[in-house]
């Protein structure tokens, strides 16, 4: 998640103090991970340096929390480009899991246990999300559903790999023989 772009987009509604920005971010996006003030101010000073925001109506005293920040035209262009560009699909987890399965097979361990442990962990997290969704408002529901569908996709992969584990073991074995 690009915090810089998020702050820029939040500034489009009008100039704000760093403190208000943090609050807005936490309210809308930070359910799991609220921002630290340090992150807010370091991000804002980077945006300032790059001309994407400017300080307006400086009030008495200094220190970063006295400034109000406004988005610049360059900032708006940047937000637009960010929103329009699709995200690279996340395939990281599968890579780690795939590596673990192969390494378990290579080292003569029970690869099915790797898959079983991961499935149990995924389901446990899915139960927590489902509970949170049932107690929450529409925003909670949408956030949780997004996570739930992703976890479900991982689980399908785990299931499919389970069904093919003997085949994979055989392939890993013949490849290893080819190495020596």
């Amino acid at each position, binding site marked *: 998640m690009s915090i810089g772009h998020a702050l820029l987009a939040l500034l489009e509604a009008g100039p704000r103090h760093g403190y208000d920005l943090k609050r807005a971010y936490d309210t809308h996006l930070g359910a799991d991970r609220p921002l630290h003030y340090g992150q807010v101010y370091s991000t804002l000073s980077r945006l300032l340096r790059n001309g994407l925001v400017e300080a307006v109506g400086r009030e008495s005293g200094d220190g970063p929390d006295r400034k109000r920040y406004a988005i610049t035209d360059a900032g708006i262009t940047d937000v637009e480009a960010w929103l329009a560009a699709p995200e690279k699909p996340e395939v990281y987890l599968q890579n780690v899991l795939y590596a673990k399965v192969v390494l378990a097979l290579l080292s003569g361990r029970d690869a099915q246990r790797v898959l*079983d*442990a991961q*499935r*149990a*962990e*995924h*389901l*446990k997290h*899915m*139960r*927590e*999300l*489902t509970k949170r969704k*049932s107690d929450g408002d529409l925003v909670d529901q949408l956030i949780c559903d997004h996570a*739930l*569908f992703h*976890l*479900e996709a991982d*689980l*399908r992969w785990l*299931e499919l790999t*389970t*069904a093919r584990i003997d085949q994979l073991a055989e392939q890993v074995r013949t490849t290893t023989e080819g190495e020596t």
Partner: protein
Amino acid sequence: MSTHTTDSLDAEPLLQATELFKAFGLTEALDRASLSVTAGETVAVMGPSGSGKSTLLHCAAGIMKPDAGSVRYDGRELTTLSDGERSELRRTEFGFVFQFGQLVPELTCLENIALPLRLGGMRRKPAEAEAEHWLATFDVTDAAHKRPGDVSGGQTQRVAVARALVTTPRVIFADEPTGALDSLNGELVMRLLTQAARDSGAAIVLVTHEARVAAYADREVIVRDGRTKTGVLA
């Protein structure tokens, strides 16, 4: 999170199926499958298609007799009961929700929900009053006087859940209850089913191959090639 992970070993199980075997000809549908359910808990039975989930549910619910193994429910051994005793037990203690086809097509939705009560000897008026209460709870009052074939899939399934709950069963057996529904209606049915079961203290045996549906359960049991393993790590 509540206290610690519910440990099914702590409480005496209400329903316990132990080392079940069941073959259909050469197909070994169950090959040492076990399942235990404590009062009020929801257990998801998961696994790929053809792994034996439905067979396990049918045996645990006394619909089908396993070739070997034991099914104990509340102090009674189901496998040695007569057919009549087992169907009486199913009618009074259990509720059933299937993927589809469980409602009587000739009856209205209201009559379908009232039916289990009528079969238990309740008179029509009080049975239908009870059914109306469930229709309202599940927000399907406008289906009351329509037949199952004339309402949407989501409504049909809510009526089916109401019918399963109307006798306040202690165990609800649900076999792919959302299998024929889209995501949104599936969510709704799962919410209503789990909420109503929680309110009445009923346990649920929830057969599903969908992880998002299984996530409504307290824990899961995995079936693979007719064998079970529990999914919860310590």
